[in-house]
């Protein structure tokens, strides 16, 4: 393909417009990684500029540099054509740059107003002489927030508490926060990752409104479809380098995918048809609450059989976490039943569920999956340390543990200097391999995997996907929970879509289309919003 001209966009802009924001030759090194390698990027006034790339391609690093959170090792930043230094978020804000981070930078117990004015508080005029000890003027601030909210059609209530707001609204609070600071340039870092397709569409409307009123937006994502929906230009990064900039009118999905991944083939698993056997897990009318006692899983029923992968699709935060925790004994079940291999395990302790033959790859590998300060060796027997051959009675047999660890490390290709290395010093992919190795080492009848490849490199993703399919082919029942629709579609034999704690519908994977699933994930079933 010759349409990609890396220098074209930065050295010779097609018109004489001065970019509002320009990054020239930015280089940033982290220990062992070249996160940004002489990256050029420019943002024209009044455009939505999409930035596309895989996890770890260097998008977030570049944006963090523009926002003053990192300092570049080389290169310069120009705003409205003038070279400038941005050494802190404070500078960035002063230069008119606002950022909506992937993980929202909000303080849940504070109100919307308090969150927005934080760091730039409006004060009661009479007490102003007391500096930071003068009285806050919440009323004036709330008034301005209302005005901004009205002007850009954001519909934000200044008196609400952040913790009570749904994710989509929290995101708008973030946008108001930037506007309140008179931002002319908005950086939106993966804003759609936590949204349903419908909410994403609403966001796109807001983005277009913002641009119409003169703002410029950098929009980061790794989803191709969104690029075509909203952007004026698209830049693609891969492995720390800027691959090129194109317009959505001239680009195709295939072309962008190739620029992003660097090779033609997109992940495709060789998978034979499933041969489902007996029922392994049966869930009946399950109801579960989250930590704040809100019911997040409601009336959920399904079955998983030997030799099949049941995928649970859904936007993050629709009860998947609570469901998995309830199934593995980590969370109390309010009502309903869980039957594993014919035995009732509704209120069983995690250990009993494990011993019955369940493997669990948890969502958060740092919180639940690993003890980061323990060596790889100990992490590989985290669930079986008390069973023979690893222990006899109370005594642990280190030799047996070491022997098994060596075997697993080799078999699962865990790249570690030694089995004595602490799990915390491994890369994310290798950490996940340790967990998968541990969970598949036992004769598991049921494998529950929750977001198995989040934040991993392509190699590890492929490896883990292969292992999951292998487990299925050996007759294991697999419950796969993932927010990545692609992952679900390529692995699952049947797909259940979860929305607001309920399973809306279960489809055969072969028959399901992306559009159909997308609608279900947004809560639309049979043309009606649930």
């Amino acid at each position, binding site marked *: 393909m010759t349409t990609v001209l890396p220098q074209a966009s930065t050295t010779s802009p097609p018109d004489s417009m001065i970019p509002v924001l320009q990054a020239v030759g930015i280089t940033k090194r982290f220990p062992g990684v070249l996160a940004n390698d002489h990256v050029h990027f420019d943002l024209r006034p009044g455009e939505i500029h999409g930035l596309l790339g895989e996890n770890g391609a260097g998008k977030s690093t570049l944006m*963090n540099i523009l*926002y003053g*959170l*990192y300092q570049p090792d080389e290169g310069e930043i120009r705003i409205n054509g003038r070279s400038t230094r941005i050494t*802190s*978020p*404070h500078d960035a*804000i002063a230069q008119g740059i606002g*950022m909506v*981070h992937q993980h*929202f*930078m*909000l*303080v*849940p*117990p*504070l*109100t919307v107003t*308090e*969150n927005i*004015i*934080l*760091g*730039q*508080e409006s*004060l009661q005029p009479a007490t102003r002489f*007391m500096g*930071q*000890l*003068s*009285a*806050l003027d*919440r009323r004036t601030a709330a008034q301005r927030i209302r005005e901004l909210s009205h002007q850009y059609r954001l519909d934000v209530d200044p008196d609400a*508490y952040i*913790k009570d707001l749904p994710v989509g609204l929290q995101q708008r609070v973030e946008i108001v*926060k930037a506007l309140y600071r008179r931002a002319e340039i908005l950086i939106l870092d993966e804003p759609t990752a936590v949204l349903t397709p419908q909410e994403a569409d609403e966001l796109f409307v807001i983005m277009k409104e913002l641009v119409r009123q003169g703002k410029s937006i950098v929009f980061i994502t790794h989803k191709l479809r969104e690029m075509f929906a909203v952007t004026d230009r698209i830049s693609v990064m891969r492995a720390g380098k800027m691959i090129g900039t194109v317009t959505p009118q001239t680009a195709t999905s295939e072309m962008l995918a190739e620029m992003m991944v660097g090779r033609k083939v997109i992940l495709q698993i060789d998978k034979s048809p499933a041969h489902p056997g007996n029922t392994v897990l049966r869930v009946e009318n399950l109801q579960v609450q989250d930590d704040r006692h809100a019911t997040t899983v409601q009336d959920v029923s399904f079955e998983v059989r030997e030799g099949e992968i049941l995928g649970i699709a859904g936007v993050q935060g629709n009860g998947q976490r609570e469901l998995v925790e309830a199934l593995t004994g980590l969370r109390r079940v309010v009502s309903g039943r869980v039957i594993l291999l014919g035995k009732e395990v509704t209120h069983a302790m995690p250990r009993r569920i494990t011993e019955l033959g369940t493997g669990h790859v948890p969502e958060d590998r740092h919180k639940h999956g690993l003890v980061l300060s323990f060596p790889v060796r100990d992490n590989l027997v985290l669930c079986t340390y008390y069973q023979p051959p690893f222990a006899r009675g109370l005594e642990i047999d280190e030799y047996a543990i070491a022997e098994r660890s060596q075997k697993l490390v080799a078999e699962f290709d865990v790249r570690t200097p030694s089995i004595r290395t602490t799990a915390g010093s491994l890369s994310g992919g290798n950490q996940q391999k340790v967990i998968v190795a541990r969970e598949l080492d036992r004769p598991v009848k049921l494998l529950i995997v929750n977001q198995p490849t989040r934040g991993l490199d392509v190699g590890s993703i492929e490896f883990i996907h292969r292992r999951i399919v292998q487990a299925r082919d050996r007759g294991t029942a697999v419950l796969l929970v993932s927010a990545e629709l692609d992952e679900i579609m390529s692995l699952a034999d049947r797909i259940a879509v979860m929305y607001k704690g309920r399973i809306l519908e279960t489809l055969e994977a072969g028959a399901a289309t992306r559009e159909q699933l997308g609608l279900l994930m947004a809560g639309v079933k049979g043309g009606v919003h649930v």
Partner: protein
Amino acid sequence: MSNSAMAVPPQRKGLINYRQVINLIFGIAAAVAFYLVFNAMIGGQCDARCVIGTLNQTIRYAAPVALAAYCGLMCERAAVINIGIEGMMLMGAMVAYGVNVYAFTWMKTTGVDVVVAGEISRWLALGLAVSASGLLALLHGVVSIRFKSDQIISGTVINILAIGITGYFYRQYLAQNIPPGPGTFPPFDIPLLAQIPVLGPIIFAGQKPIVYFMILVTLLIHYVLFYTPWGLRTRAVGENPRAADTLGIDVFRVRYINVLLGGLLAGFGGAWFTLEAVDVFNPLMTNGLGFIGLAAMIFGNWTPFGALAGALIFGLGNTITTTLSFNRPDIPSQFPQMLPYVLTILVLTGFVGRAVPPAADGQPYEKQ
């Protein structure tokens, strides 16, 4: 304080909070039952004057605990756990005593009038005690903020260090041959406020400066924490420091200043022992009050008025201990003396599950 019109901490949203009402009813019932039992134990001699006197003394005993609790509050609202309060108070008590005695002696030799010298040395002692405690707090800040050590270990270091320093100076300079000092602060009434019926004689009469300061500081902390930019930033730093950082707030600076302010408050609490309670210094004289202050802070759900309530419970326990020891010599004095500690455990076990600490409490902040 009635301030339903102004925005208050998120826990109290509606006008009437049923839990608060229920708590209030239970509190009153408990107080009445408590009085009846107490009165029976000391032989039914506790009339209205005695009740007022008891409550007056309760506030006096609550002062050091409340100040310790405020120290913890300031630190933990900015997400720095401080279990070194005990040590900071001990330091304050020792410095206050030493300065009070030696500054007075020195001034007498230079011919300053005794009354004036006493007055000056007491206030000087208070100032230096507070500074010494503040220095320890800064050390805690440096170790836990800059060097990112485990904050509970750092607090323990502060405690051990304070025991070491005070023990050493006590043996070297304060154990024997101490010149006569000017004594503790004299009590005084607050004009006008002391005339308020019932409340006046309980709160505003016959107390000494640090107790009045404690009451003032309660209001002050509430104002600063919930109505000023500084308080807003502090709370943000305690809940989500990364968010504060992205808005250009210097997380480290906010934490340092709060820890320092907390240390100063603990210094006042320490000075209470030797400038208000008794005119001697003993090693380990703080007797765990710093830890009790932490319990009061947890009881009060990290709010100043709540912490004050916790401190008052302790103060009442301590008052009863004293009264019982005095009126009932037949009970071995050790048992009434256990009361405040047992009370603290009970209060803590009853309330800790419901209290919600700041989300980032205890976590060192790593800049990206």
